[in-house]
């Protein structure tokens, strides 16, 4: 006799791997722009990070005695490694990439039991852990469109003596922070910052490997929205919160607080809004919960950028809100058909 099988007997074709593939595709423009801007060292780092992510995943699966092939082929480890790579400084040495993917895959994901079980976004966990552990390597920002040749690039990525100084500077966010701390105002800071707001929107600025091009990231994100891979709630509430706060403060003091256009175009904001905060596993499931989550991320990013010790707070913001996700999911539940918001059966009109 055939085994007992429950309806439905029909399934949508979309699978986990199809979703992951779409996310990877949406990341491709920003990645390509990043690799073009930062040259061979960035490509080496990217390959090492993604490759090691797959290796760590395979190793963990082997150790846990699980089937390696199906899980490795669902593209989730590839995506995690990819996101880690995008959030690293483009010329970081190879071991930063390997350590990053170790933290993301092993500590951030497999320790919790694998895909779907982790509390924190693996890529952001890696980013923050690296930033705190290796502050020098993680804040060495190189100029775009200034990449050296093959041999020098090899040295940069895989060790050796290389004079960085002439290639590096601060990110726009970091630059502003330094300038403010020295008592200079916004217009002075912009003038000495090197790259204009518009150029930075397209990615021509100092920053992480795949984070600099806000336009490419937003484009990929909008495509994901159209493809219904993500919903609008988190990106919109996150970006709207940043816009509202930035507008408010720039109105209060235009010399002290940069405006919303600057915030949207700099740092990891676009990457986080469309690709990190929207991570299914670590964000709330209800629409209202997602709005809260996005707003929380946006507010914390703005707080850290404006008053915090670090120039960029996207990683911290996401991790903090990740830790609140179970709480949000517990309290924010949708109203069920036939029940009121508190879950009691609906009362009939005219009855007691």
């Amino acid at each position, binding site marked *: 006799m055939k*085994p007992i099988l429950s309806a439905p007997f029909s399934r949508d074709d979309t699978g986990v791997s199809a979703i992951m593939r779409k996310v990877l595709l949406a990341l491709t423009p920003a990645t390509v722009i990043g690799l073009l801007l930062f040259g061979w060292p960035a490509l080496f780092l990217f390959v090492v990070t993604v490759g090691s992510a797959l290796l760590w995943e395979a190793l963990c699966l082997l150790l846990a005695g699980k089937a390696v092939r199906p899980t490795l082929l669902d593209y989730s480890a590839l995506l995690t490694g990819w996101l880690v790579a995008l959030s690293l400084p483009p010329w970081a040495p190879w071991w930063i990439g390997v350590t990053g993917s170790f933290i993301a895959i092993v500590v951030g994901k497999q320790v919790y039991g694998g895909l779907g079980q982790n509390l924190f976004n693996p890529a952001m966990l890696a980013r923050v852990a690296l930033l705190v552990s290796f502050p020098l390597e993680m804040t060495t920002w190189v100029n775009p469109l200034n990449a050296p040749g093959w041999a020098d690039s090899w040295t940069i990525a895989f060790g050796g003596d290389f004079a960085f100084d002439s290639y590096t500077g601060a990110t726009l966010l970091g630059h502003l922070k330094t300038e403010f701390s020295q008592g200079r105002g916004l217009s002075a800071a912009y003038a000495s910052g090197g790259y204009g707001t518009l150029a930075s929107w397209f990615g021509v600025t100092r920053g992480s490997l795949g984070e600099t091009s806000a336009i490419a990231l937003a484009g990929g994100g909008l495509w994901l929205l159209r493809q219904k891979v993500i919903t609008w709630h988190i990106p919109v509430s996150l970006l709207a919160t940043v816009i509202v706060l930035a507008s408010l403060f720039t109105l209060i003091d235009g010399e002290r607080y940069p405006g919303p256009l600057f915030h949207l175009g700099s740092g990891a904001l676009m990457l986080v809004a469309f690709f990190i905060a929207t991570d299914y596993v670590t964000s709330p499931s209800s629409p209202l919960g997602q709005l809260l989550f996005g707003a929380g991320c946006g507010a914390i990013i703005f707080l850290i950028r404006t008053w915090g010790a670090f120039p960029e707070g996207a990683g911290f913001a996401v991790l903090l809100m990740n830790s609140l996700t179970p709480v949000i999911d517990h309290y924010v539940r949708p109203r069920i058909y036939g029940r009121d918001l508190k879950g009691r059966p609906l009362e009939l009109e005219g009855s007691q």
Partner: protein
Amino acid sequence: MLGILLVCALFALFGLLLGYSAIHFRVEGDPLVEKIDAVLPQTQCGQCGFPGCRPYAEAIAKGEADINRCPPGGEDGVKALAELLGVEAKPLDDAVGGEKPKALAVIDEQKCIGCTLCIQACPVDAILGSAKHMHTVIASECTGCELCVPVCPVDCIAMERVAETLASWKWPQPRSVLP
């Protein structure tokens, strides 16, 4: 000075809060024995070594008996007890016998001699009959405790497995292919 006063005020406030919650959120508790007894399957079979479910519940409550001595309750029952008492669940004690599929006593009415011994043994009055007359088991009342089986002098009582029917069938858990 102000600091000391503040701390005192704070303590007083917390004290009041605690007092309030002690009155307002008091747990109207069943005594533990009742709760344990409610979890036990009430077969009254005595396989645990106690004369009935309640005595076993009392023994557990006093800490004199382990929670894994009830075969009719099975692993699920042990789990429920462990949850209730906040202790680790463990496999059934081998000494009391393993978990068996549900069964009901059936009297072979040809062989029954009407001795009433089984009627006296049945803890839930599930056997009908009188002296010198054939006995029968009321299936809906039988708990499957097997206490009637050994007392029968002519071995006319058998335990019959409860067959799955359309009404009792339930969906099985999907064959999990997940890790």
